[in-house]
């Protein structure tokens, strides 16, 4: 006898993902903590396209005519601004979240490409200082490992108020990543589930921030620029307050920005998309008349040279990348390399109940490819030479894609890309980016041209 056909109708409100969430919550009494960034569908730079040159504009020859990429950050007050060869910087990621080999590989690749890298929650390691020509030193709420000696040997100081993955929330590093070295750097007992503070311990509010920025300037004898990094929420107000407080560079991290570990509810439900945040930040700088003095760095889900080009066209001076850096190093790859030989890592993904392409288990410290781990055994899976070469290749591709698009728009300098070079493919993207919907002259919320 054939089985009777079942009529299966999945609830849209309580689908299998929601059921799994409820049942996990009921079983454990704890919310989910994970790494990386938002996985939900969001408006992105993919919803914009360039109006490259034709009869009304003329392009530059892609393989002959130069297209400048030099980027200077923080020249407003610092005696030694940050002078980069490309407008693509490496975002702050901590030693602790990342292995020492990963930090070293990042520093070497960034230096080879003439760009900056950034410390993270946990302080500066000797490996990354030695490997990095341009090293931005973060001043975070936790102040783990923070000290005036490292401040004085930094090339810029970044006051972190928040980040896109968890604006308003503090960081986390679960016990399995608190190795003896990480514990010593953070002045914490080994193996505890560590909570980073969400507010700075020594100041509150924008007036205090003004004084704090001046303290850091005085301490470093006004040598290096001061950046202020914020998660994208009330962007227009926050950017104005940061500039008024004295920031030389403002970094806005959209909700696609990644993290080593935080609550899933933060990652998916707090902050606004990078695409929406960037025009708000630009408008804030223009309102204050400082768009030519204060540099804007945008981050959160930047993946391709096209993303970089679109960010610059919308008014950013540079971008910062984090998750893409990890992926260039091998994050979510099915293999790792031992003296050039590819070794299958899928059993290690399966042990974490995940698979290559789906892994967000940075918080476990059991990274199958040795990037986000403190395990001496796993860390060896990322050779700094190999990692640096891969990241350098990736940064080169981003830069070539960026200049290719810029030349096709007729620009001899990537910083000449402008909003007029873009149109949007969706009404949402047009409204957020303040560019016309493709095929129209309509920008939602603005009078027709």
């Amino acid at each position: 006898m054939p089985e009777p056909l079942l009529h299966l109708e999945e609830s849209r409100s309580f689908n299998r993902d929601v059921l799994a969430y409820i049942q996990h919550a009921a079983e454990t009494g704890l919310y989910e903590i994970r790494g990386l960034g938002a996985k939900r569908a969001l408006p992105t730079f993919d919803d914009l396209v360039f109006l490259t040159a034709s009869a009304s504009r003329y392009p530059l020859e892609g393989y002959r005519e130069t297209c400048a990429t030099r980027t200077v950050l923080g020249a407003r007050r610092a005696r030694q601004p940050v002078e980069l060869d490309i407008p693509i910087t490496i975002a702050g990621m901590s030693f602790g979240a990342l292995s020492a080999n990963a930090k070293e590989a990042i520093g070497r690749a960034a230096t080879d490409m003439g760009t900056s890298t950034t410390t993270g929650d946990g302080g500066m390691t000797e490996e990354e200082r030695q490997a990095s020509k341009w090293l931005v030193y973060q001043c975070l709420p936790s102040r783990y490992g923070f000290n005036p000696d490292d401040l004085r040997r930094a090339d810029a100081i970044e006051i972190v108020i928040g980040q896109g993955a968890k604006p308003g929330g503090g960081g986390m590093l679960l016990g399995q990543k608190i190795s003896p070295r990480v514990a010593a750097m953070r002045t914490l007992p080994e193996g505890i589930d560590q909570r980073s503070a969400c507010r700075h311990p020594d100041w509150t509010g924008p007036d205090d921030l003004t004084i704090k920025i001046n303290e850091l300037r005085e301490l470093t004898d006004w040598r290096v620029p001061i950046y202020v990094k914020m998660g994208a929420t009330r962007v227009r107000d926050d950017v104005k307050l940061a500039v008024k407080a004295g920031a030389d560079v403002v970094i806005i991290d959209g909700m696609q920005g990644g993290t080593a570990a935080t609550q899933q509810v933060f990652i998916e439900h707090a902050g606004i998309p990078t695409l929406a945040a960037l025009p708000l930040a630009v408008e804030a700088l223009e309102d204050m008349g400082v768009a030519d003095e204060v540099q804007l760095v945008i981050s959160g889900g930047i993946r391709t040279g096209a993303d970089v080009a679109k960010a610059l066209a919308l008014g950013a001076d540079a971008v910062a990348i984090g998750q893409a850096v990890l992926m260039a190093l091998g994050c979510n790859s099915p293999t790792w390399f031992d003296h050039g030989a590819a070794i299958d890592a899928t059993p290690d993904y399966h042990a974490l109940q995940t698979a290559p392409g789906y892994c967000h288990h940075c918080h476990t410290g059991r990274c199958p490819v040795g990037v986000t781990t403190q395990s001496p055994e796993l860390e060896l899976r990322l050779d700094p030479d190999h990692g640096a070469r891969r990241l350098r290749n990736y940064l080169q591709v981003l830069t070539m894609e960026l200049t290719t698009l810029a030349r096709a728009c007729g620009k001899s300098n990537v910083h000449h890309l402008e909003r007029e070079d873009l149109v949007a493919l969706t009404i949402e993207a047009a409204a957020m980016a303040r560019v016309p919907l493709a095929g129209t002259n309509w920008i939602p919320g603005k009078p027709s041209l």
Partner: protein
Amino acid sequence: MDRPSQRLIRLDLEQQTLREVNDFLHQRLPHEFAGGEMPRVEILNPNGRHNVAVGLDTPVEVDILGHAGYFIAGMNKAARVTVHGNVGWSVAENIMSGTVRVKGCASECAGASGRGGLLVIEGDASSRCGISLKGSDIVVAGSVGHMAAFMAQAGTLVVCGDAGAGLGDSLYEAVLYVRGQIAGLGADARIEPLSAPDHQRLTRLLAAAGLPHAPQEFQRVGSARNLYHWHADRGGAYG
């Protein structure tokens, strides 16, 4: 105290900019007196100015003659700084070593995130004194406000007067001693018995601060360590 041969240098914030004063302390002073006896430095007319004597990295004695603002002697290394007046927020924040002494009272977040050295406040300290402490010793001759030693990781806070509500909330391995009344303990903080090492530590710190109290007059507060690991049954304590 002046030694007969010790040179005295006076810097006047009514005559010189803050930048000039801090630049002298950072650059000229260690360079000009390298290998010899350091002079004593007096800073006149602070008049509530912020960021005075931040980032010192020299074993010099500095007296700030008057009331001063935020971040006084921030991130101090090696220097011995005395403020002859009151201070604003975050005096000696992130102090690494040396001594900072406030003859008056301190506003919020005194000694925040300090990693070493000694901070003495001869008056009272406001809220969040010793927040995020990472190894410094702080002695307050008077009382402290609410949330003192919040998330303090290592080091010692000695309070000779009373402590406000939420004392030692989310403590890690820092140890607190209170001689007066405790208005309330924060999450995961608990009263613990005084041991012989506590007596020795208190005796040393009270002597360094120049205070006459006996160790047995104090209560010890430490971490119950119940929040060191995430656990469903402690959900309420996580807030």
